[in-house]
C-alpha cells in the first residue's frame, strides 16, 4: 500500500509499477537525442549535442572525459535540475519532469546540509522520500545506514566537523537510505585523497552489489582506474560540443578484486585503450583551444 502510494506520488506509469512493488526499485535510464545549449543567440555554448545512451536495469555506467565535456550536465538532466534544450530523459520509459527523490544524487562535496547532524541529514532524506513512515522507523533506518558506512558513532556530528571522506560516506548512506530507483553520482570521490578514495570505492561496490540494493548507477568520474573498477560499461565523452565518443564494455567478473584486477592482462589492455582515447581527445581539445584563442585574438 505504502509503496503503491509512493509510485502514484512519483507518477510512475501503471505498467512499470511492478518494478517498484518488489521493493527492489531499479530502473532503466534512456537518454534520447539529448542536446543542451546555454546562453542566448549571440553567445551560444553547446554543452551537449545529440547524446544517446541506454542504461539497463542494475547497470553501473561511468561517464568519463575531460572537463567541459558535459558529464555533469548529463547528471543535472537526469536528476531533473536542468531541462534539456532538445531530447528527453526517460526513467523506466517515463520522461523526467523535474527533480524527485526517485533519483538519489551524490555530489562532489555539497550534498549534506551543514545545519543538520549526520543523523539528521539521513533522517531528513528518509522523511521526505517515504512521507508515511513513523518517526521511530525513520530513526531506526537512518541509524542502520550510518552503521553500514561505519559512522554510527558520528551520528551527532555536524558535517563541518567531519573529514571529506566521512562526509561522502554520510552522503552515500543518505542516498542508499532513500532507496531510489537510480543512483546519480557526480565525481563523488573527486575531492578525496587516494587512500580515502580506494576505501570509498570498495565501500560503494560492497553496498551496491549487496543483492537487494543493486541499483542502476550513473557515475561521473575523470579517473580511468575508478571507472574500470566500478563499471559495467564506460561512456567516453568528448568536449565542445559534449558527445559520447565511444561506449566500452568492461567484461570483468564480479565481485572484482582491486589487486588481481590491476594485474590482469585484459585490464592493462583496456586501460591502455581508454587512456589512448582520452589522450587523443585531450590533444584535440588543446589544439582546438589554442586555435580558438588565436582567432579570438
Amino acid at each position, binding site marked *: 500500500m505504502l509503496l503503491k502510494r509512493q509510485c502514484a506520488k512519483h507518477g510512475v506509469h501503471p505498467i512499470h509499477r511492478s518494478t517498484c512493488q518488489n521493493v527492489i526499485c531499479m530502473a532503466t535510464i534512456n537518454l534520447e537525442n539529448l542536446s543542451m545549449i546555454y546562453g542566448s543567440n549571440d553567445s551560444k555554448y553547446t554543452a551537449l549535442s545529440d547524446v544517446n545512451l541506454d542504461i539497463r536495469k542494475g547497470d553501473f555506467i561511468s561517464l568519463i572525459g575531460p572537463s567541459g565535456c558535459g558529464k555533469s550536465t548529463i547528471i543535472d538532466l537526469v536528476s531533473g535540475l536542468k531541462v534539456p534544450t532538445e531530447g528527453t530523459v526517460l526513467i523506466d520509459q517515463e520522461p523526467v519532469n523535474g527533480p524527485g*527523490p526517485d*533519483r538519489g*544524487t551524490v*555530489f562532489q562535496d*555539497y550534498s549534506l546540509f551543514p*545545519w*543538520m547532524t549526520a543523523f539528521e541529514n539521513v533522517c531528513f532524506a528518509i522523511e521526505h522520500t517515504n512521507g508515511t513512515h513513523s518517526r521511530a522507523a525513520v530513526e531506526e533506518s537512518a541509524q542502520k545506514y550510518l552503521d553500514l558506512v561505519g559512522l554510527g558513532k558520528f551520528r551527532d556530528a555536524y558535517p563541518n566537523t567531519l573529514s571529506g571522506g566521512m562526509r561522502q560516506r554520510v552522503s552515500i548512506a543518505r542516498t542508499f537510505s*532513500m532507496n531510489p530507483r537510480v543512483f546519480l553520482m557526480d565525481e563523488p570521490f573527486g575531492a578525496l585523497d587516494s587512500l580515502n578514495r580506494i576505501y570509498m570505492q570498495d565501500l560503494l561496490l560492497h553496498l551496491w552489489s549487496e543483492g537487494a540494493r543493486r541499483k542502476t548507477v550513473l557515475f561521473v568520474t575523470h579517473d580511468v582506474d575508478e571507472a574500470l573498477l566500478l563499471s559495467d560499461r564506460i561512456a567516453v565523452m568528448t568536449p565542445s560540443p559534449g558527445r559520447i565518443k565511444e561506449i566500452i564494455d568492461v567484461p570483468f567478473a564480479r565481485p572484482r578484486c582491486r589487486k588481481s584486477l590491476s594485474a590482469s592482462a585484459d585490464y592493462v589492455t583496456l586501460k591502455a585503450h581508454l587512456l589512448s582515447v582520452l589522450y587523443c581527445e585531450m590533444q584535440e581539445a588543446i589544439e582546438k583551444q589554442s586555435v580558438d584563442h588565436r582567432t579570438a585574438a
Partner: protein
Amino acid sequence: MKTGLVTEQCLIIALLATTLVLAVIVPDAPAQAVSNNSIFIGILFVLAFLFVAELYLQPKNIQTVTDIFLLLSGLLLLWEVLFGKLALLDPFLFPGPAKVFAVFGADWEIMARGVGNSLFILTSGYLLALIVAIPAGLYIGWRKRLFAVAYPVAKAVSPIPPTVYLPYAIVLLPTFWASSVFLIFIGSLWPIFVGAVYGVFSIDQRLINSARTLGLSENQMVWRILLPGAMPSIFSGAMISLIMSFITITVAEMIAATSGLGWYIEYHHQFANYDKVIAGMILIALVVIVIMFLFDRIQQHCLRWQQV
C-alpha cells in the same frame, strides 16, 4: 604569563580594598556628601565576591574576565577618588559613586517598572518584526520575481530612521504603547528583512540543488533549507535591529512616555538631578549587557553547526 595573571589578580584585590577603605573611612567632599553610602559599599562587596567566584571557578577565558575586573575596579577607584573625595570637577554635574548608587536604593521601584515597561515594548515590537520579516525575506529571496519588485522598495525605505514616523504614530495610534511598538517594529523590520533576503542569496547553489533532488515541497524548502541556510545573515540583521530598537525606544520614551528607561533619564534631566541621570545611564548599560548576552547565547545555539 601565569605570574602576570597572579599579579593582576592581586592588583584587583588591592584596588577594590582601597576603594572600600576610602568609602568607609574617608569622608566624602562636602558637596558630594550622601546620607547613606551602603549601596556603594554593597556593590564593592558584590564585585569582590564575583571576583573570588571567578578565581574559584577558573573559567576558560580567565584572562579576559580578569582584565574586565581590573578595568572596572580601576575606574571605580578613580571615580571615587577624583569625584567622590576630591570633587575635582563640578560636583553638581559629576556626582561621586556613593551618590549615584544611592539612587538605586531610593528609586528601585520606579526603575524596575521602567525596565519592565521598556522591555515589554521592545520585545513586542521586535518579535513582531521577526515574525513578519523572516518569512517575507525568505519567500521574497526565493522568488526572483517578487524580489525584483520588493528589494528596491526595501532599500529605499530602510534608511529612513524609525523615529521619523513618530508624529504619525502618535496621532494615528491610540496609546503610547501601540505607537512605540509600531516604531520598533518598523525600525527592526528592514535589517532583518534584508538579512533574510541576502541570506537566501548566499546559500550555495549546489546545496539548493542537493535539496531539490530530494523533491521537497515549497514549504519544506523554505523552512528546512532556506531558513537555516540564511540564519547567519538573519542574525547579523537581527543584531542591527536590536541596537536600533534600543535607540528607538529610548528616544521615544524621552519624547512621549510617562515611564521607562528613556523617560527616567529625561525626567530627571529636567530637574537637573544628574546623579539620577547617571544612575539611569548605568541601568540602561546593564540592561543592554544582559540582553546582548542572551542574544549571543541564542545565536551561538542556533549557529552551533557553523563552529568547527
